[in-house]
């Protein structure tokens, strides 16, 4: 099935990686991009601004109850878990941190996998913890496509390494090659 959404998780080094990734992603992408990036900041406002400078995609904080939009990067707000309901609208939660993280990549990936089933692409980039590994396994379990940045290519290899060990990947490649793969998978 053609992908209907792309979910991306990253942590340490994530901002730079996202900038590089989004710069090369085709702005005609009909899928929304759902991003969960751990940051120490109180809000993701600045992150959205910085990302917007590098891409022609629209970048915005994910708002609860709204539908993800085509060709738009929706960033999980700081301090909240971001979830996708079965009707594919965003939901937020202040439930406890999962593996020390809120937003948690696992929470986003798990719920998005249930909402999009096999029409989801999950991407795990650089990061210094193992969040996202279990969620990526859920995505694959639902028949979605898993893309993992080559750990050796990542600023922090722990997260992609953990994802590979726990979930495996349909594609494991350097960051520079991920945008063209996404464009190929998603613009078909």
């Amino acid at each position, binding site marked *: 099935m053609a992908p209907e959404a792309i979910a991306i998780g990253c942590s340490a080094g994530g901002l730079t990686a996202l900038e590089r990734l989004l710069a090369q992603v085709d702005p005609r992408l009909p899928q929304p991009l759902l991003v969960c990036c751990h940051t120490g900041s109180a809000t993701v406002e600045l992150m959205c601004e910085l990302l917007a400078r590098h891409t022609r995609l629209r970048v915005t904080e994910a*708002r*609860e*109850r*709204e539908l993800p939009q085509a060709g738009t990067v929706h960033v999980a*707000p700081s301090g*909240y*878990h971001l*979830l*996708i*309901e*079965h009707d594919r609208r965003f*939901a*937020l*939660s*202040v*439930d*406890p941190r999962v593996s020390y993280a809120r937003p948690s990549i696992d*929470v986003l990936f*798990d*719920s998005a*996998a*249930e909402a999009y*089933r*096999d029409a989801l692409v999950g991407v795990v980039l650089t990061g210094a913890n193992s969040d996202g590994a279990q969620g990526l396994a*859920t995505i*694959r*379990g*639902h*028949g979605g496509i898993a893309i993992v940045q080559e750990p050796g290519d990542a600023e922090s290899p722990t997260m992609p390494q953990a994802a590979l060990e726990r979930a495996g990947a349909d594609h494991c490649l350097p960051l520079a090659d991920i945008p063209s793969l996404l464009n190929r998978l998603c613009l078909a």
Partner: protein
Amino acid sequence: MKEHSAGRTDGELEDIEVELFVRALQARHGYDFSQYAPASLKRRVQQLVHAHGTGTISALTGRLLHEADFLTTVLEGLSVPVSEMFRDPEVFSALREQVLPLLASYPQINIWQAGCAHGQEVYSLAILLEEAGLYERTQIYATDFNPAALRHAQEGIYPAREAQLWSRNYLAAGGSHTLADYYSARYELLKLDSRLRRNVIFANHNLVTDEVFCEAHLVLCRNVLIYFSDPLQDRTLGLFRDSLVRGGFLCLGTRESLDFAPAAADFVPVDAGLRIYRLGAKAPRAG
């Protein structure tokens, strides 16, 4: 469909199990979670399964039906006890600067803290009012559907490791002393000054099923409605509207969206970014 189809079936199966669990909870104990946002509810139910090693949600449902005292555990697992004192400090400074001066004109101030969980915000509010010189004539109604959470809130005892963050929040919110003036710490625990709850009534109230019980000048309900479906969010906003005096204030969580709630039309933003609203002229109610 791809080769990994098992998860897909499991997910669907679990949706059915959650539905049955919710029905059992209502039929056996009268708690209605059917209007909760499904994704978070499912996660919490899964966590209960994990925490109690029941293996499946159905087995959890079995315990819920057959073990009378299991309800307490389930309610605790399904409610949101996580908060901080002065969480989102900018909200508390806005309350201090924009809301309290207007509340000061009332001889008696009633505040409804809806969904008070473990009470961190109740005490934050009491401190805020104390420092504004308004607490003596304020009555705070702190409500929650979870009796265990209410007991915890009433005790006002928290892990001491929270003190650092809460103190930072307190100062960022414009506190005029230090937070340590309001608690005593011993071993791993901190206990808030019991004088802070002298004007607090802790009461059981379920936003899903209960009605208005007081006339309020300010309603605080932060990060509770995010767990509600659109219709339940709308119903709850209607409760707040009916509870508030004309010109009364409503304070929600900073990331909550009112775009899908018709009842929101009755509220005028005071600070839209911080989700502080004021009740406009009350529209006549249908029926």
